[in-house]
């Protein structure tokens, strides 16, 4: 069942058409991969879906309800949480404070006047910190954490709000293999509990190992979608990644062999 539907989205920056009639769906309860060469429009698509960019045309729907043009805080309210390509945490706030920013924003202004560090709230953040393994650093300023820890913190900061969908923009970028395995395990565990994921990633091994379904973008359009094996074998994908010339060379070599 499709959870997020993107219909004919276009977005141009000056002469660059970052998205050019992009149509795709992300399925509910699955880990959806989104791959494509540099400049194929993956991050722009994320920005459009999460309300950071207004599309020039086209529709985005979540659970069949249109969310096109909603502001980021409203999109978040519809159950979509995201991370950023360049990790973004709140550096001058402590690790715990970082987590509580996202927690429980639904209750209107009255709830905003309540203490952020009530026992109930903190037991929740304790669970999340244990889950990502950052409990030891709870009182530390987030800016003092290592890059990998910041990645985990950003992830935890989304997760604490229990969104329906978590969109991860290059979670593996600059992360060491041990931490990557750790992160993948966390993603799978959350997915097992029903959270849908959309993962933009360049690390093919990571994507193919993690994702149930992969969409491929090229020049602002979706060119192919399916399970990892199908996508890996698709000639259009190879073309998008390696270029036509390369493929011709490959073919020529294949003939020679």
């Amino acid at each position, binding site marked *: 069942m499709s959870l997020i539907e993107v219909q004919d989205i276009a977005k141009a920056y000056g002469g660059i058409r970052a998205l050019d009639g992009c149509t795709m769906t992300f399925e509910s309860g699955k880990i959806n991969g989104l791959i494509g060469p540099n400049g194929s429009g993956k991050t722009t698509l994320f920005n459009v879906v999460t309300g950071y960019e207004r599309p020039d045309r086209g529709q985005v729907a979540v659970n069949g309800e249109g969310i096109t043009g909603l502001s980021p805080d409203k999109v978040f309210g519809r159950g979509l949480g995201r991370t950023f390509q360049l990790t973004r945490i709140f550096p001058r706030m402590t690790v715990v404070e970082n987590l509580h920013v996202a927690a429980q924003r639904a209750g209107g202004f009255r709830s905003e006047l309540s203490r952020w560090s009530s026992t109930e709230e903190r037991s929740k953040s304790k669970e999340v910190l244990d889950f990502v393994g950052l*409990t030891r650093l709870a009182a530390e300023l987030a800016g003092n954490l290592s890059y990998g820890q910041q990645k985990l913190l950003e992830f935890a900061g989304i997760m604490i709000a229990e969104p329906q969908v978590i969109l991860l923009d290059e979670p593996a970028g600059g992360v060491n293999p041990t931490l990557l395995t750790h992160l993948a395990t966390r993603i799978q565990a959350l997915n097992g509990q029903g959270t849908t994921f959309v993962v933009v990633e360049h690390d093919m091994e990571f994507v193919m190992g993690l994702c149930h379904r992969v969409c491929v973008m090229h020049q602002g359009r979706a060119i192919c979608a399916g399970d990892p094996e199908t996508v890996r074998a698709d000639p259009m994908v190879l073309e998008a990644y390696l270029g036509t010339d390369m493929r011709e060379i490959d073919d020529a070599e294949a003939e020679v062999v």
Partner: protein
Amino acid sequence: MAVIQATPELLRPSDIDHAFRDPYALSSRTRGISWVGLFAILAAFPLVFTNPAVTSVAVFTMFFLLATVAWNLFSGYSGYISIGHAVYYGLGQYTVALLVLHLHIAAGAGELGVLPLAGLVAAAGAVPVGLLVLRVRRHTFIVLTIAVMFIFQLLAFNFPSITGGSTGLNVPPPAWSPYSYNLPFYYVALGTAILALLTSWGIRRSKFGLGLLAIRDDEDRAKGLGIKVTRAKLIALVISAFYVGIAGGLYAVFVGQVFPQFAFTPFYDLYLAVFSFVGGLGTLAGPVLGALVLGPLQQYFEIQFGATTLYLIIYGVLFILILLLLPRGVVPSISDRYRSMLAAHWRKTGRGPATQGGSSLSQGPATGPAPAPAMPAEPIVREGA
């Protein structure tokens, strides 16, 4: 919640306190006693030092204390450095002057009675101003706040039928004994400053305040985490303007005259900003420290060198020195130094807080789906906890 199976044992509040405790933080008792002690000293000050020359300086310092705390609860928390708070200061001054004039309020305590209205008018003024200036960020925001402040100054100059123009407005001084004349101003300002500080403290503890800090650190991400950033910034500005308006009203009654160039003055915000920066921007104690130390110093310079603007140069040099030596302000810098000293001491003596459990990367991955355990009536005590 969904991830509960990652930590099968339920946690007692005390466990969480232990895990989240900042090992270097002063206990809340120490902090409480320090604050009460500080304000006891401030309350006793004009009764001990009764010389009117001294208490006058003290009164202006209290005005600064009130306004600096108020300025910080918007600019310090949200990171939007306003150099246009004189708008609210001036609105407060003119509100009191005009009310006294048109309602024929007799000189005396009644003039101080209209102070809440001065705050409300300033707060109301902050809504349209905020909706305009909060559309932009950082440097553009700073420049825009100054511009709006000068617009208000021009308006005050150019509507003499209302504001008296450059001749200003008079607020008849209360006919109190010269020996105790300063006291009501001092205590009203001190009381309002305490109220402002309590507001600031309450904001810092609330989800609303956490949202402001998130806006300061990364507004776009804050937006993506469900924070209504424009609303949050505007509310903080309105609260801040309310207290600064009261400071303006107090000033108008105390000095007895309101002029456009002194009501809507660019220097005012420089003081508030410098006091907050030097003390520690966005902290609770920083602006208090800044205003209490630099406020009297500013008065001294103005009295000593007020004939020329030389004192502004001295002030500038002082500011540069502090920026060079303690770039983040006195309170955060001292707090950092104290932390590293304490940490070094603990390392040497082998004592200090035990690094509490919490899963590390070496711990096994969370297992797959499992039914979340129901909350037992009795909390399960963890071994060794």
